[in-house]
């Protein structure tokens, strides 16, 4: 079976430093792959190379067998690849509902149709479904900038799922989220994964969160993969412990 995401020997060089150094891995349909590693190990750079924010120095990325290396972020998103960023990225002056409608609108029809065609086309309804699903109904009409950090984080994730993507790359979804909301977030992610067979790659520092959510873990250190496997196996790997704690 063709993997949903196929990363082949991606290298990204900044000056003399190999931020990502020949990383290859595959992610299959319905998997939740965790990407962990110490700070500066190249996780976010790898995401940015996959998603068109950065051009990899060498290597190739395929989604469902189609090469996507070097494509622009907006085109990748319209191919069904969603993402969240490490730092919170919502549109503070737009309402929660408007944020979600925006996240869906570019996936329908042409640019001209968005101006001259019907204004709504079911977007408000699907935004409201997303709002209910992420339990944001009580703040749906508030400006996103007025929400608590945790709520904005939920909105940020909800926006990535608005267009029903086949693959979503989440960069530290749990960062700065309180423990109660964290359980909530994990349940939401699991539910979407189960119902839509959506495939996730998750960068996370919160070990408990990542170990309990992911089906497989990839460990990155200094731009290279140093371990991969099921959560229990990776947790006890001496190389991983050394990378995190130093020798």
């Amino acid at each position, binding site marked *: 079976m063709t993997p949903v995401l196929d990363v082949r020997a991606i290298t990204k060089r900044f000056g003399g430093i190999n931020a990502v150094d020949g990383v290859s891995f595959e992610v299959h349909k319905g998997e939740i792959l965790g990407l962990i590693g110490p700070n500066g190990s190249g996780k976010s750079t790898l995401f940015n190379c996959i998603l068109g924010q950065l051009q990899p120095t060498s290597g190739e990325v395929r989604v469902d067998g189609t090469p996507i290396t070097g494509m*622009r*972020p907006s085109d990748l998103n319209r191919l069904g690849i969603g993402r969240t960023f490490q730092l919170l990225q919502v549109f503070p002056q737009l309402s929660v509902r408007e944020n979600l409608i925006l996240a869906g609108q*570019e996936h329908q029809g042409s640019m001209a149709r968005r101006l001259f065609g019907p204004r709504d086309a079911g977007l408000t309804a699907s935004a409201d479904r997303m709002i209910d699903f992420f339990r944001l109904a009580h703040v749906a009409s508030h400006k996103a900038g007025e929400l608590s950090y945790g709520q904005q984080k939920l909105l940020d994730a909800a926006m990535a799922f608005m267009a029903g993507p086949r693959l979503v790359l989440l960069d530290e979804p749990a960062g700065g989220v309180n423990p109660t909301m964290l359980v909530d977030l994990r349940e939401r992610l699991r539910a979407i994964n189960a119902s839509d067979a959506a495939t996730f790659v998750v960068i996370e520092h919160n070990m408990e969160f990542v170990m309990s959510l992911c089906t497989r873990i990839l460990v990155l250190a200094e731009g290279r993969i140093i371990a991969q496997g099921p959560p229990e196996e990776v947790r006890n790997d001496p190389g991983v412990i050394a990378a995190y704690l130093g020798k």
Partner: protein
Amino acid sequence: MKLRWVFAAIAAAALIAAPFALKTYGVYLLSMWAVMSIAAVGLNLTLGYAGQISLAQGAFVGIGAYTAAILTTHGWPLPVAFVLGPLLCFVVGWLLGYPALRVQHHYLAFVTLAFSTLVFLILRNEEWLTRGIYGISGIPRPNVLGFAMKDPRPFYFFCLATTLVVALFAWWIVRSPWGRAFMALRENPVRAASLGVDTRRYTLMAFAIGSALGGIAGVLYAPLVQFIDPSPFALGLSLNLLLMVIAGGSGYFLGPFVGAFVSVLLPEWLRFTEGLYLMSYAVFVMVLVAFCPTGLIGVGERIAAAFARRRAGAATAAQDAVAR
């Protein structure tokens, strides 16, 4: 909500009644307000909604004005200029958008400033087309639906009607998915792109549409003043339009109308201070921008919110009193 419609009705009544109470110069100033509002609405789309700074809006007013002046003094009717002027500005604005794909903020300001200077130089130096510093005189006012617009009052109503049409068009854009995409572009272009927003095309569109509205303002400006030379379209006008958008409230729909009102009419009202009138205007603008960066509409919103809070506070206090 109701209050808003009351305000709108009062404003509409005032705009219709005003020319009957004013002398010729007053009617001329109100017409100028209508024309500048159109250009400011365009800049508000580019800058206020889409977040792309431009110091070239005055140049587009110039392009529109010269299109109208050249065409109508050669015997073409004004409606032709109403099509060609904005169309030319749309195309040139689209091209001016390309630098915005590479540079932002003050760098973009400098690119547009250079463009503004370029247009001024073309208007001044290409005498075969624009008659250079001698300008174009005898620009006729149109007949609309058989009515002659020669007199100030009918021409004012023509300007007002055009402004209304432009306002409705701008409202239609702002409330469309494009308006939403423009705001996303302003607030976070990287995130917008990651959600499928084609930031390149929307940036170019924001420039093109905003510039086309500048062109419409120009097409009205030429028959209003009936004589044009390059000097009114120098950098000063672009800066003035920028001031209108900022002082009125950048990114607020009504901001440019209020801003144009302040910029066109306030200096006139301050004339009683004689030698001090430009100075007091300058001080007013500095204080406004320093203390209310959201502009006059922003101040209005703040006051309205304070009232709403006080009313809500009073209501809960009353409930508490009853409960006790």
